[in-house]
């Protein structure tokens, strides 16, 4: 029987609040000069006291609801005692016995198979200061200290790296939908710890933790490395030590940080500075009512209502802003423009432009209404597909409405028979050779003649109409001869 991994995750996600967890300093620390967003509380000055940020509690409960958790009726904060310079008070205010949320799940889908990954708990704590190691010393900046941090702990329910990738992708998407986290991993807004054991099915392996993973790539690469390492040990008949590992980003290997014997003793106890919270069920229900439709539910609805493929539905729902754009476009679409067409243009042409110019959907100046106005011209044959793409690109750059772009560029498609017939006649007259071949029954030459019509009309000819007129003109000549 083959070895298989069992994987659990701890995800730390910074909350998008204005102020910090326990004081009024700005939580938007990324671009701030060092130690410029610090006060007695987050610096851990003697005598300073914490006060709970209500919005951080709300954001955590909202997350718990989105992850199908039970929300605590009574919850409190505890002190997690461990000395380190990035922890200004020598303890972190966290939650131990009574977390805000517990016993939930997040559904993932890998290779067409749906699975629920159980969520053990979601709790609220404070972020640490930033330590930067330079020659001979470590530099401490307390701007990040005290930023609200949510910890989402899964059960060890995952058994492949693909499942883990899907879990973190889904989770990030949910947090961004809720507006509680930026998902910006380059800025450390989400950080990961995994625990992994490898064993034959039905057997228990030894749990190894890997800490300080700052990207999806670090999560998957370190897991691949660690699964291979443990499997190799087991295959040789060895046994895996229960250790805590770090991940060496540059060399792409795990290294031992701490053995089981060195496990810290955090001496948790209720923080006497903070009275407990009791969450009113009516308040929780109010939050539940405010939950947006979440990405997986949305994707399923898109498939059901619009007949989109699972892939397209997934792409459209991964980001809330894209889904909202799509839905606004569908709502504004006139007859002839369907959801499928909008999806194709959105995930095809618009996404290509966004990737090429490194823009997010929020930065695109095209309104959903303008997009469907453009698609209507294409659907009605007033614009060729090729011209449509050209117009979309200019709309992407300038934000001008499609009708304006079409008029300015003279791109309106020629669908008027009276206008197109003389062009067709002229092309046939100027190309006696190909015409002869066509009359001789060599159909492929029609494509050449179509090209000539397009060239003569600078691509504006309605292709179906041009083709019909060419065939009719040829037919007339055949009968005449």
């Amino acid at each position, binding site marked *: 029987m083959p070895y298989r991994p069992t994987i659990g995750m701890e995800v730390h996600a910074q909350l998008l609040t204005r102020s910090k967890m326990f004081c009024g300093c700005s939580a938007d620390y990324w671009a701030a000069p060092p130690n410029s967003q610090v006060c007695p509380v987050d610096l*851990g*000055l003697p*005598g300073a006291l914490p*006060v709970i940020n209500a919005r951080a509690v709300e954001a955590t409960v909202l997350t718990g609801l989105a992850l199908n958790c039970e929300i605590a009726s009574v919850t409190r904060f505890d002190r997690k005692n461990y000395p380190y*310079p990035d922890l200004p008070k020598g303890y972190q205010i966290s939650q131990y016995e009574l977390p805000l949320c517990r016993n939930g799940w997040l559904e993932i889908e890998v290779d067409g198979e749906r699975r629920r990954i159980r969520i053990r708990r979601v709790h609220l704590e404070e972020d640490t200061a930033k330590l930067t190691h330079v020659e001979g010393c470590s530099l401490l900046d307390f701007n990040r200290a005290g930023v609200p941090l949510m910890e989402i702990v899964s059960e060890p329910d995952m058994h492949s790296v693909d499942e883990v990738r899907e879990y973190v992708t889904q989770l990030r998407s949910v947090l961004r939908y809720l507006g509680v986290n930026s998902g910006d991993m380059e800025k450390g807004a989400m950080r990961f710890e995994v625990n992994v054991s490898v064993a034959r099915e039905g057997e228990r392996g030894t749990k190894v933790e890997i800490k300080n993973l700052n990207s999806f790539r670090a999560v998957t690469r370190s897991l691949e490395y660690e699964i291979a390492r443990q499997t190799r040990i087991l295959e040789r008949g060895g046994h895996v030590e229960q250790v805590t590992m770090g991940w060496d980003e540059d060399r792409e290997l795990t290294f031992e940080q701490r053995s089981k014997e060195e496990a810290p003793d955090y*001496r948790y106890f209720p923080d006497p*500075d*903070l009275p407990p919270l009791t969450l009113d069920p009516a308040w929780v229900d109010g939050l539940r009512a405010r939950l947006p439709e979440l990405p997986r539910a949305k994707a399923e609805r898109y498939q059901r209502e619009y007949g989109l493929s699972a892939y397209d539905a997934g792409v459209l729902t991964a980001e809330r802003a894209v889904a909202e754009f799509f839905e606004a476009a569908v709502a504004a679409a006139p007859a002839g423009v369907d959801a499928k067409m909008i999806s194709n243009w959105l995930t095809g042409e618009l996404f290509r432009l966004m990737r090429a110019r490194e823009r997010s959907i929020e930065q695109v100046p095209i309104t959903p209404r303008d997009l469907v106005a453009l698609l209507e011209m294409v659907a009605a044959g007033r614009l060729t597909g090729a011209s449509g793409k050209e117009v979309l690109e200019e709309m992407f750059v300038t934000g001008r409405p499609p009708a304006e772009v079409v008029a300015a560029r003279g791109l309106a498609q020629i669908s008027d028979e009276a206008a197109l017939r003389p062009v067709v006649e002229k092309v046939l007259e100027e190309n006696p050779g190909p015409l002869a071949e066509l009359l001789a029954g060599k159909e492929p030459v029609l494509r050449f003649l179509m090209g000539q019509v397009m060239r003569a009309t600078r691509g504006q000819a309605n292709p179906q109409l041009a083709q019909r007129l060419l065939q009719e003109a040829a037919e007339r000549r055949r009968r005449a001869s």
Partner: protein
Amino acid sequence: MELTSLTILEAGRLLRRGEVSAVELTESVLDRIVAVDNQVRAFLTLTPELALEQARAADERLTAARRSGEGDLPALLGIPMAVKDVLCTEGVPTTCGSRILEGFLPPYDATVVARLEQAGYVLLGKTNTDEFAMGSSTENSAYFPTRNPWDLSRVPGGSSGGSAAAVAAHEALGALGTDTGGSVRQPAALCGVVGLKPTYGRVSRYGLVAFASSLDQVGTLTRDVADSALLLSIIAGHDAQDSTCVDLPVPNYLEALSPEIAGLRIGVPEEYFGPGMDPGVEATVREALGQLEALGARLERVSLPHTSYALPVYYLIAPAEASSNLARYDGVKYGHAAPGADELWELYKRTRGEGFGAEVKRRIMLGTYALSAGYYDAFYLKAQKVRTLIRQDFDRAFEKVDVLAAPTSPTVAFPIGARVEDPLQMYLSDIYTLSLNLAGLCGISVPCGFADGLPVGLQILGRAFDEATILRVAYAYEQSTPWHTCHPSLSVGQGADPAGC
């Protein structure tokens, strides 16, 4: 009458009438400090320049108000006071009596300090304390012990010994202290002044350097009960920066004072008259109880059956919280840093090893142990459960009576050095005061006479947020006895000069 022996209210009246200026008053107190503090050693830091500057500003206001006829002046305008050195004062050294905070200049004021400032007080300086308020004699100060003004060879009690001695020795008209297990009431008793410990949550702890967060409370040390009532009205009340500070209206405690206590039910807890008590103290306190009865109060025997467990409960909970509260002193952000430490853990361990004194280390060790894996349930959690039983004792007693009356301390002031080698013996000094902190209630110690020539304190314990009633009882007692008018001799081995009253 000496300006330095005035109460806050008396001085306030003279200032308002223009009979004395704030500068004159402040200068006399500063002169008194210069004259006697080399013996008493109540102050760790003096701020004479700041004090005179504040006094001049007060005088300007007082003069302007007299000219314009404005009557509504801040209550402490021009009153020279002292502040215990565990309360943060912006730009003024705050050491907590510890080497580890030597030179620390807080960039902010404690809420109570800000409120005194708003009320117009004059800051004379910061008073001595047992290191981080851990002690009952002020001998645990890392700098020097303070001496009892009634007998300079004895301790003033602690940990607010500097504040109590300063008020007793007329080096300040009033002072702030802090009380975690008796640290305001016990030194008040030993120095013959009034010490008030408000209900937990009545006064903001923001800026009070934490010792044991669930027990700490800011209190006042004054020459009489009316001054305590006045100060409490100023420092009490909601503070959005302290989540444990309640949002209840603050009564005008001064106006609520009355010498009328006829019919009031006063409980006398039998467990507070146990073995280990000085016979002289017991006799003095029993006499005081008789006086309360003479004033028309009804005395009733009550029982607080878990009293004997309060000491072990306290010495598990307080050190546990302290071990966490004191983790921040690591040589990184402020205070002492071990010189030459070139590795992180060396910096931590040496900074803390050098910076903390014996008692603080002992309590950090004890608290760390009580919280550590495998011992939490047996020690910390157990202590928290017994704490519930102690609270229930008080709840039951207060169903029957309005206040409790008991000795503040089992003994009078003891000689310097007598208990330093025996921590348990020292801890017994607080045996009658620390239950109140465990229950979070309010209490006041008021002078009730002398034993062996040394002051004895009568403790009145009250329901949560019922400071008005304990102040009333203390006031009624005080006004019917001469003790608050007694002045210390500032000599060695003499004790009280009864003629001083």
